[in-house]
């Protein structure tokens, strides 16, 4: 795509090129965010209580206030 950008072109084509660059940026950023999300979920997986169903079921409170 870098090559394409160097070519002289009409303004409408330039716009297309710019959009493509932006899309690539977005894709790269999304990839980074995805990795980031994977990392935090992996970390949280490690601390989550095991047997979610039993744990949630056994959290019983009396009213307060």
């Amino acid at each position: 795509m870098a090559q394409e950008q160097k070519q002289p072109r009409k303004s409408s084509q330039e716009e297309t090129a710019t959009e493509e660059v932006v899309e690539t940026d977005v894709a790269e950023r999304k990839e980074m965010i995805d990795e980031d999300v994977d990392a935090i979920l992996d970390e949280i997986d490690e601390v989550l209580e095991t047997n979610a169903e039993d744990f949630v079921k056994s959290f019983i409170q009396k009213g307060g206030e």
Partner: protein
Amino acid sequence: MSVRRVMGTEVEYGISVQGQPSANPMVASSQIVNAYASSTVKARRARWDFEEESPLRDARGFDMARQVADASQLTDEDLGLANVILTNGARLYVDHAHPEYSSPEVTTPLDVVRWEKAGEQVMLDASRMAAQVPGSTPIVLYKNNTDNKGASYGAHENYLMRRSTPFAEIVRHLTPFFVSRQVVTGAGRVGIGQDGRDTTPERGFQISQRSDYFEVEVGLETTLKRPIINTRDEPHADPAVYRRLHVILGDANLAEVSIYLKAGTTSLVLAMIEAGFIDRDLSVEGAVKALRDVSHDPTLRHLVTLRDGRRLTAVQLQLEYLDLARKFVEDRYGSDADEQTVDILARWESVLTRLERDPMECAGELDWVAKLRLLSQYRDRDDLDWDDAKLHLIDLQYADVRPDKGLYHRLAAAGRIERLLDDATIEAAMHDPPVDTRAYFRGRCLDKYADSVAAASWDSVIFDLPGRESLQRVPTIDPLRGTRSHVGELIDRSDSAQALVAAITR
């Protein structure tokens, strides 16, 4: 007025004895309070003073030097006594079936954050201390408001207001604010309805932990038929001058920005009501239903119908209050507005603007958005429906007070949630009182003259002095007296409580 006023918060913590869902929560709560008291409170443990009048020595009827050594031997009578005052001026006690921390009186939103967060650390330490008692089962505490099975417990706010402000004006102008402020202050909840059972694929998450538990617009109750505006009026100050507005509909927040904005924006709105500044009627049709409907729509598109026929989203309703508050502060202070007032206005505007654009932009500041983002990421990765136990677990564990297990704490430690205060500042507030309210006097007395303080409450400190037949009650009826500038030097130079009381009563 500005964001500054006498304020404080009270948080009831969810409590769970690991592996024993049927354990008596009152016993467990007492174990928490007593463990903290035994480990930290010096020598004699001062009692909470329930009496308005000076109690007589023979009216005490209990041994104040006694420590409850073995919590498992607690009787019902002992359970009623788990109630201590801390050197930071706070009250730590058992309220019904929950341990509760009532912060000392403070005057700024950031100090609300500081002493409320200190309370979380007190609860964490208390649970660790309770776990050291031989034969005890670990107790885990949660800063949340519901078990998702029908029970709810509170995180109350208190704001000192001018008595001269008509209560009807408070109800009129505060109700629409309360219906809508949850978009900023909500803690997020998996489950719809009081028992949380309504989790259809599309509808599983709501903004507030508390909204489904509110049933009337105005009332005195706090445990059933909960009202949006609570009428309890016990100012703990001169009742001719002040009322204490007791706010019961808020969520227990972990995110510091959520707490900060909750106290700051509410205080500002109250200032406008006191000043008679609000010139528009934002009254909402069917406030109770509107409160729930707003909570049930995390896309923030739900339209609330105003009595004048306009239809606004909750964010737009908040923007109305923001607009008024900007004009109010400009009108009263211009460029002389204090730093926190300016900061609250800027943050409020920033948060509302981004919530309107895309709520996810606030995932690094607000509890409900942080929680929703995490839940959405799990749903995407693991293809989970809203009724999946794992999502309910994430909701619950978000509020776990332990830094290694609590998901809020994991997100904050990873830099994903903004902090306003550092750990050292919060830790100091576990022991030090605020310097600009009567909590300073209370806290310093507890710290320096522990052996001589028989009891204390918001509006008094009661001394038991050698050679005196009756207890000496020092009233602290004015929340803005007994500050460091009033009594700091006096306490510094009084080596004993006798010297202090002599100097005060001279």
